[in-house]
């Protein structure tokens, strides 16, 4: 299974950085997500996660470090988190860490809402933006 690496960019749209590593099981989604075609961007990530959780089945750590994502991205994040929850329910080992600016109350509520929606435990890790 191949790794996914997409370098984030900040030009015509905001493309997040994606680092999905099939050997280590560490997956990172960081930066800002505002895309021309959200589905086209996130569908391969969803497929990768489905393949990893059904075939590789090793422990995973998923790190989310998004400082901004638009509402169409929020649906794709929900898809990813639902796959992680299914994996956990089937006995898979997964840790989800979501890093967010400690002053961003809206982001904090978003993470709480994702936990309610999916039933997945997400470690909420606040950071000081000046030190990030």
């Amino acid at each position, binding site marked *: 299974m191949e790794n996914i690496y997409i370098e984030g960019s900040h030009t015509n*749209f905001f493309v997040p950085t994606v680092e999905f590593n099939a050997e280590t099981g560490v997956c990172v989604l960081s930066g800002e997500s505002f895309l021309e075609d959200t589905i086209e961007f996130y569908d391969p990530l969803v497929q990768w996660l489905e393949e990893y959780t059904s075939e590789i089945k090793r422990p995973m750590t998923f790190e989310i470090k998004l400082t901004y994502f638009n509402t169409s991205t929020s*649906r794709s994040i929900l898809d990813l988190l639902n796959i992680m929850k299914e994996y956990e329910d089937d006995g898979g080992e997964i840790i989800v860490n979501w890093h967010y600016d400690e002053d961003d109350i809206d982001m904090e509520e978003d993470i709480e*809402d994702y936990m309610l929606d999916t039933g997945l435990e997400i470690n909420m890790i606040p950071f000081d933006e000046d030190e990030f």
Partner: protein
Amino acid sequence: MNTINKKLSLGQSLFSEEIRISYKGPVDGKIITFLADYIYVINELSEKATRKIFKIFFELAENISKYSADKIKLKDGKEVGSGTIILKETVKNFILVTGNPIKNNDLIPVMENSKNINNLGHDELREYKREVRKDNTVKKDSPNIGLIAVALTSGNPLDIEINPIDDETSYFSLAVKVDK
């Protein structure tokens, strides 16, 4: 049209408010990201207000890009919606105002959704957002999810005004306040 003129005016209200951003034209990814980045360099905005205006701006600008009835074809062949975006500062708030023509068929669900949004408190809005986001029958880029997010981020009601242009089209104006 008087209220729209008031909302979108540049010249008449400068004594009581300052215009921080004013743009009229096609709204594509390039313009959205440029203006979004510009929000971060406006000196008068606090960190909290900047973050909120940034988030609200994206949703409203995307709605113009996708749903404005006034389409402009760019050199690369892409057709994007055109409209007006203004960020104003008053004594107590920042106000993001957008305006664009909209097909009446697209207008009815937006109006119904906005009325619903304005009747809900913060926790109810969060629950409504979760319901709509989970609903696979709703398109991922539906403007309705965006408007719920806008209301949640703003913490203030959506101020919508509609003025008929002809039998098929109306002028849609939306003002969203962010407290200082």
